């Protein structure tokens, strides 16, 4: 680890800590329906939205009503996006004249599912496929809506813990509208201006053609990038305006925009832990969850940065200097932007895969085996290392239920969490949510590893090729959206299977967790006694970390062994494949 790496990590976590408390407390007020200064400005728009939708924001929904509203809203927005993508040829704001030829049905299915599920997996090159209208309406709408839906689910689950003897877990429509208007909109307005100030374009003009110094014609693609860039990162969406994503100088021009991006990605996922603490009436509960997430994050960062900084035996054998000096970054620079170097690239890979963001500023396929294992494992934890907007917290609370259950088994006492007894049903729901993720990743990876049409699309054979498939389905199922690359994914097979994996990973996890929220809300609180296992301490945070690692290891160690682990030993033996 270089001094600059340690300094960057310290600055990054300090910035997150500074944001977490004020933003978390503000979000707690927003979702409790308390008056905030922004309500004076946007209150009218909020009330108009309810009138247009024909909903009563004060209706307290049972978990089944809440969940069905969420599913129908997601289906309707998915169908809308599918239609807008397929019909982009006859829709406005299409100066490049893209049509259905660039967007066949299987790609439109994959893309509509991808953005509905907050995954933003992109099997296509956006600047060669999607019109401005489709980008801003069919896709960007999901950057807002899917983030707000993720937040709503987390808030509903928190209410399950916070409420006593209650039938309802809140109002889905009110949660989504409040999140959009009072959390995402103001932060996006400020953030888009920061991106524009750092050099990110915001324009509706057609692409520009230049003559290069060699006399060749080159087309420069751009468009309304800044407005999409901010919600892409803030909503942990990750779908880029350009195929190169955050490695493109128009999305991420310099070190300052890169650091700002990193802070933006984890700002809401970190802050919502404090929202959790505030809403359940004990801020230390939130900090325990934050601590567990931060410990997992830091461990991954240290491994990934160290592995990338160390380089490979192949580089040493070729007498390429791998030590960092004042003039060059050293290490494994393949697939990394020189303006970001080793540390900012590896940190970005950790942050984007810890959150279910999926934006990339370097090529993960070019990482060393151990360096690439970390982003893969981050996703396989179920995106709980701060995780997606809302999704990180509800995933970690699922693990918290399992942690208190295991602790209860060890001491022979009915487990409790936040004053609620954790009984058979809650554990069943937590297990269903955990198992469906592993089942989807492993099933589709196994299928694609043996199906000729799927393996034929790989650029690498052997363990690296396996890692490419494993990474794709880990990314799809866990709604991350980043690509290891190396697969030609724009085929009917991958578009359909990844589309199904994204749907399973999103909605078949949400259903049991909302069922758990409904069951918890109905329960009365149990009094804290000398036998209660405290869940607001570093000991509990440690247990939580252990449960996440054990579940991840038990589910995925064989897969990881076939991919990055065996590749690491091959690398050490200087083997080629």
């Amino acid at each position, binding site marked *: 680890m270089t001094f600059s790496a340690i300094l960057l990590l310290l600055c990054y976590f300090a910035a997150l800590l500074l944001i977490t408390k004020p933003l978390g407390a503000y979000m707690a007020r927003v979702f409790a329906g308390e008056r905030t200064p922004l309500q004076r400005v946007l209150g009218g728009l909020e009330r108009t939205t309810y009138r247009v939708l024909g909903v009563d924001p004060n209706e307290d929904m049972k978990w089944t009503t809440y969940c069905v509203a969420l599913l129908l809203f997601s289906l309707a927005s998915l*169908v809308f996006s*599918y239609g807008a993508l397929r019909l982009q040829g006859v829709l406005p704001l299409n100066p490049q004249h893209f049509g259905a030829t660039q967007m066949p049905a299987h790609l439109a*299915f994959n893309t509509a599912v991808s953005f509905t599920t907050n995954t933003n997996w992109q099997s296509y090159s956006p600047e060669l496929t999607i019109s401005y209208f489709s980008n801003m309406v069919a896709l960007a709408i999901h950057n807002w809506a899917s983030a707000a839906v993720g937040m709503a689910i987390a808030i509903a689950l928190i209410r399950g813990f916070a409420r006593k003897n209650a039938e309802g877990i809140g109002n889905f429509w009110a949660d989504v509208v409040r999140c959009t208007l009072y959390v995402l909109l103001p932060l996006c307005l400020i953030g888009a201006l920061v991106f524009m100030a750092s050099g990110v374009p915001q324009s509706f003009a057609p692409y520009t053609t230049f003559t290069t110094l060699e006399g060749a014609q080159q087309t420069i693609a751009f468009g309304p990038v800044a407005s999409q860039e901010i919600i892409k990162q803030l909503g942990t969406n990750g779908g880029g305006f350009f195929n190169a994503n955050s490695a493109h100088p128009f999305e991420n021009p310099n070190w300052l925009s890169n650091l700002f991006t990193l802070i933006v990605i984890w700002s809401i996922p970190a802050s919502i832990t404090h929202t959790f603490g505030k809403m359940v009436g004990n801020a230390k509960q939130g900090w325990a969850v934050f601590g567990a997430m931060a410990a997992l994050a830091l461990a991954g960062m240290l491994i990934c940065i160290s592995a990338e900084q160390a380089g490979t035996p192949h580089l040493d054998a070729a007498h390429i200097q791998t030590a960092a000096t004042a003039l060059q970054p050293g290490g494994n620079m393949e697939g990394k932007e020189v303006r970001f170097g080793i540390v900012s690239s590896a940190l970005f890979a950790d942050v984007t895969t810890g959150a279910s963001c999926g934006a990339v500023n370097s090529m993960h396929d070019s990482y060393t085996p151990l360096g690439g294992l970390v982003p893969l494992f981050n996703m396989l934890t179920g995106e709980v290392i701060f995780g997606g907007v809302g999704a990180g917290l509800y995933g970690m609370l699922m693990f918290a239920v399992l942690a208190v259950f295991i602790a209860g088994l060890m001491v022979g006492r009915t487990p409790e969490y936040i004053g609620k007894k954790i009984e058979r049903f809650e554990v069943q729901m937590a297990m269903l949510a955990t198992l469906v993720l592993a089942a989807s990743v492993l099933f589709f990876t196994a299928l694609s590893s043996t199906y000729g049409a799927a393996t034929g699309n790989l650029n690498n054979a052997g363990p690296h090729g396996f890692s490419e498939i494993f990474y794709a389905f880990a990314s799809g199922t866990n709604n991350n959206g980043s690509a290891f690359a190396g697969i030609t994914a724009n085929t009917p097979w991958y578009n359909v299977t990844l589309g199904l994996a994204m749907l399973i990973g999103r*909605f078949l996890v949400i*259903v049991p967790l909302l*069922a758990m929220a409904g069951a918890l809300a109905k329960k009365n609180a149990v009094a804290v006694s000398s036998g209660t296992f405290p869940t607001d301490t570093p000991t509990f945070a440690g247990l939580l970390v252990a449960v996440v690692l054990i579940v991840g290891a038990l589910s995925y160690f064989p897969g990881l062994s076939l991919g990055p682990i065996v590749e690491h030993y091959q690398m050490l033996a200087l083997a080629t494949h």
Partner: protein
Amino acid sequence: MSDLLYLTMAAGFFLLAIAYVYGCEKLRGGSQ
């Protein structure tokens, strides 16, 4: 034709998810 296939697939998934909602609710009732 392919549009209908993919839209039916999506709608079918969400119908199954709604059935899953009521399945979980039934399980909760049974476990009480």
